[in-house]
């Protein structure tokens, strides 16, 4: 996959937190640099979840297709 735009969704376990927000990122999922990029996004989204007073015990971030919203990749800590 070339550089493409994805939507990020952050979950605590099975419950989507911050579901009214729309987090978008441009990343190339074939390059190994994506690991660091997505890790940083995960940390930032977990922090935002905590600020929104949600317990983030088991954070999972899903990288979703921008148009359909279907998950492409799951990222855990």
């Amino acid at each position, binding site marked *: 996959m070339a550089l493409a735009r994805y939507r990020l969704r952050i979950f605590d*376990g*099975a*419950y*989507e937190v911050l*579901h009214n927000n729309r987090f978008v990122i441009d990343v190339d999922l074939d390059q190994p640099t994506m690991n660091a990029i997505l890790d940083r996004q995960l940390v930032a989204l977990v922090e935002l979840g905590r600020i929104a007073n949600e317990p983030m015990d088991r954070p999972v971030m899903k990288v979703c297709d921008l148009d359909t919203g279907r998950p492409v990749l799951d990222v855990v800590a």
Partner: protein
Amino acid sequence: MHHEMSPTGVAVLLLLAVVVDYVSIGPNWLRDRLAFLMAIPAVYEGFNGSQLDAWTLERLTGVIQWALDQSGNAYIAGASAAAVVGILVGAVWLYGLGCILPAKASKRLGRLATVNFPPSGVWAINWKLWAVAVTIGLLGDVPLGWIGDLTSGTNELLADVFAPLPGFLLGGN
């Protein structure tokens, strides 16, 4: 009490629920939910109004009454134990509802929808599931008012839904 199923049907439905739970038949999302939904009408039709039901209710009310008496001369000591039992049954019903709802519904309904029955493997009975089902089936007629409508309505709705199933599976009545 008007029975939708014959005693044979109740026994078949109860055993079916036990088998689905014990053998863990079905995919993950269906298995516990199906066993739970079948267990409730089986317990409701089979045991509601029996001596077991009366004994359970009497013991529970006794415990609640003892707890209320422990508070001495506080204002709350005059509370009705039956009403407290009713609200506890309502809370158990709410837990059962959370387990039935799919986790995807949590976006609109909150974290209650993410609650699940504890996982139980093959060749194991899920005791918490059965405890909740027995509570709702036996004590669903205890609360009054809106919560009573929910709990006894659930019992009767599930009895209506699952009444034809034993006839389909094993024939006869």
